[in-house]
């Protein structure tokens, strides 16, 4: 009997995606739970697995837009019994490929790594010609090298034409979504950024003092993020206008504190949400962040993990940023940008002293948040970081 392989439900707002890659070939014998395909949706990339074992026949080509619930393959369970003891594997490439590509196209595909399936064909009925492949290969000349390869020495001037020193790759669905959302946020909101700086001495002292005990007890390091998360929750309570958003002609005021945390992954930026931060302890926040980051980097993150945040914290400091103006994570109304901690001379009580300083940036939607609110909010964050006792006593 043949079992249909369908695109699994991904969450309410997701109705379609792109079947980015097949891990199996048409006619392969597959085992139960074997990964079959990679699905890219607006938000995440996930894997589809085999529900049963058998011989698979693929119904859609890689790169096809598919709907949730769409049948993309069938697995013939009866084929398993009938399967010969491992069919002899041809030493060379299969004789008949799925696409009838010309021999020169096949050679270029093998040599350059350009997949003809992703090349727009100029030949009869859209067939890919050698010229199309050469153009695609020229547009993407770099061999698929290990990403860790050190940057090549600057090429000699005039060594190669410009096009050979450029690389063109199709944007992933995730990157396209990030791009359109960022542009959307910039077009939609009246975005403005306010700055401040904070002295990290107190937080650093606390970390130094309690780190060992903290790790021993919770199995996770006490980082800066839990301090900032708590400081943000504290400031949101003080300035509720920042914990709101515009929905058409309505202002939606949030009375909860789900904070989005920007995480950089090799596939792009992900912003998982840490729920109910007002009720979590420092250790719980650290653990939740670590877990979300791990899931995001492994591509295991679920849509529900990305939805419903009220405010975002992004830390460009881990890459050494001195100062930047973050873009809103729509439909939220504000985002806090953290930066690098650098020792700088500052004046304290009439004395020039060296302190570990960090610049803070708060981008906000001026349609909803007034300058007074935004500046107050950021000052509250600064004060809580410079004097964490405020978090305890709520001042």
């Amino acid at each position, binding site marked *: 009997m043949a079992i249909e392989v369908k695109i699994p439900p991904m969450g309410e707002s997701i109705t379609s995606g792109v079947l980015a890659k097949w891990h199996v070939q048409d006619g392969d014998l597959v085992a139960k739970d074997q990964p079959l395909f990679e699905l890219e949706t607006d938000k995440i990339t996930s894997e589809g697995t085999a529900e049963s074992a058998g011989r698979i026949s693929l119904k859609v080509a890689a790169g096809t837009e598919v709907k949730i619930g769409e049948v993309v393959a069938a697995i013939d369970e009866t084929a398993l019994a009938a399967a010969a003891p491992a069919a002899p594997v041809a030493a060379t490439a299969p004789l008949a490929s799925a696409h009838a590509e*010309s021999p020169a196209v096949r*050679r270029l595909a093998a040599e350059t790594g350009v997949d003809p399936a992703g090349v727009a064909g100029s030949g009869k009925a859209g067939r890919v010609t*050698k*010229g199309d492949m*050469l153009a695609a290969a020229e547009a993407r000349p770099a061999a698929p090298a290990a990403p860790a390869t050190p940057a090549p020495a600057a090429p000699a001037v005039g060594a190669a034409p410009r096009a050979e020193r450029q690389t063109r790759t199709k944007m992933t669905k995730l990157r396209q979504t990030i791009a359109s959302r960022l542009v959307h946020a910039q077009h939609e909101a009246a975005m403005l950024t306010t700055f401040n700086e904070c002295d990290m001495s107190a937080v650093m002292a606390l970390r130094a003092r309690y780190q060992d005990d903290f790790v021993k007890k919770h199995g996770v390091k006490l980082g800066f993020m839990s301090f900032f998360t708590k400081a943000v929750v504290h400031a949101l309570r003080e300035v509720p206008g920042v914990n709101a958003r515009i929905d058409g002609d309505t202002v939606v005021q949030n009375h909860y504190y789900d904070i989005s945390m920007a995480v950089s992954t090799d596939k792009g930026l992900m912003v998982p949400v840490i729920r109910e931060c007002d009720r979590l302890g420092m250790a719980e926040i650290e653990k939740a962040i670590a877990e979300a980051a791990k899931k995001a980097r492994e591509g295991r993150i679920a849509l529900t993990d990305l939805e419903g945040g009220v405010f975002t914290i992004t830390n460009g400091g881990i890459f050494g940023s001195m100062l930047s103006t973050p873009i809103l994570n729509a439909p939220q109304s504000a985002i806090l940008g953290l930066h690098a901690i650098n020792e700088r001379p500052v004046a304290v009580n009439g004395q020039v002293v060296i302190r570990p300083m960090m610049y803070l940036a708060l981008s906000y939607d001026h349609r909803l948040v007034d300058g007074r609110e935004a500046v107050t909010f950021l000052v509250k964050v600064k004060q809580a970081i410079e004097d964490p006792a405020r978090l305890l006593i709520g001042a």
Partner: protein
Amino acid sequence: MSSYDLLVIGAGPGGYVCAFRAAQLGLKVALVDKRATLGGTCLNVGCIPSKALLHSSEHFAFARGHAAAHGLKLGSVDLDLPALLRRKDEVVAKNVGGLALLAKARKVAVLQGEAAFVAAGTVAVKGATETVEVTARNVVIATGSAPVELPFMKFDGKAVVSSDQAIAFAAVPRRLVVVGGGAIGLELGSVWSRLGSEVTVVEFLPKIVAAYDDDIVRNFSRLLAKQGLRLETGAKVTGFASGVLTAERGAEKLAFPADQVLVAVGRRPYTDGLGLERIGVALDERKRVKVDAQLRTSVPGVWAIGDVVAGPMLAHKAEEDGAAVAEWIAGKAGHINWDLVPAIVYTDPEVASVGLGEDAAKAAGREVRVGKFNFAANGRAIAADATDGYVKIIADAKTDRILGAQILGRGAGELISEVVTHMEYGGSAEDLGRTIHAHPTMSEAIKEAGLAVSKSAIHAL
């Protein structure tokens, strides 16, 4: 009065293909021709009879000139011209008879007579005994072409003839002068030269078969001269009187004694007596029927195909026109690629071409790479005594896409098809080189020429 979905005027390769295709698609079709047989010029007095003559005369030339080298002692080899012409007639009869059977099986009404428009959708067909009027929702003009006559040297059917008579001389002319070094002149010139005529070809242009690349023409001319054809190029014919054809090359006066003169300077679109002016079908400056990209004339419901419209006057081009028009009339997606019409001169060796030549490509400023391969390095050609000539592939220097091909060699006309197919699919020279060709065949020269574009031919340096 009979009424049809489609009436096709002219039953040549364009017309009958159009009629047959339309009938296949379910239309009610009538096909008119003034000849008693179908097939038009091509099957009755053109391509097919000339090929029969070329084939027979090749055997004769082989038997006389080359058989001994193959160890064949044939004794005396004599020509029986009536028998040779009879065979040619049988070849024609077989071809046109086949068409009649197909027309009947496809329920295409065949009307014999001369057609003339009465109105846009009404055509009078004047037969031997009566004139009938036929109405049709669509009419296709497929009346073809006729030999061009020189005004100072009109056809008389005896001394000054067209190809119509030159396929049926009752005796081999002692001295034949051919005016015009194109395909028709060279093919029929070759036939009579092989059968014993002293043949002189007089061409107005500086080279024969002017559409081909210079190097191909140079080699082709040399090979024809070796066979005994005298080629006089750059010569303007001035007249024919008292058995002497006169011509001028600049200030030089030329005189060629001739028993018969074949005028083969080209063909003109044939629309005589059709009454196109009556319904207002527009013609261009060369008296060709004006058509749009879908072969529609200026009169709605009236179409035109083949030699009567602009484009190469070739049977296979007319056939494509005819099939496409039938499909368009039936509401389907007809397709013609006028950029890829192969052309062939059926001499020995043959010359064949498709697409852009090297000269034309360079004149157009295109950057090309050219791969050549000589039949002298092809095993089958050596075994078959067919080492004259070469294959030439012209490819885009950047994309390697095949832009054209020219082949000089035995059977070039059969070999060219492969290149046309590759081109139709956007193939590159490398694709030719990476496609398996059976060994030993002359076609391996195509593969090698494809490889030669990237300087990687195996059997050439």
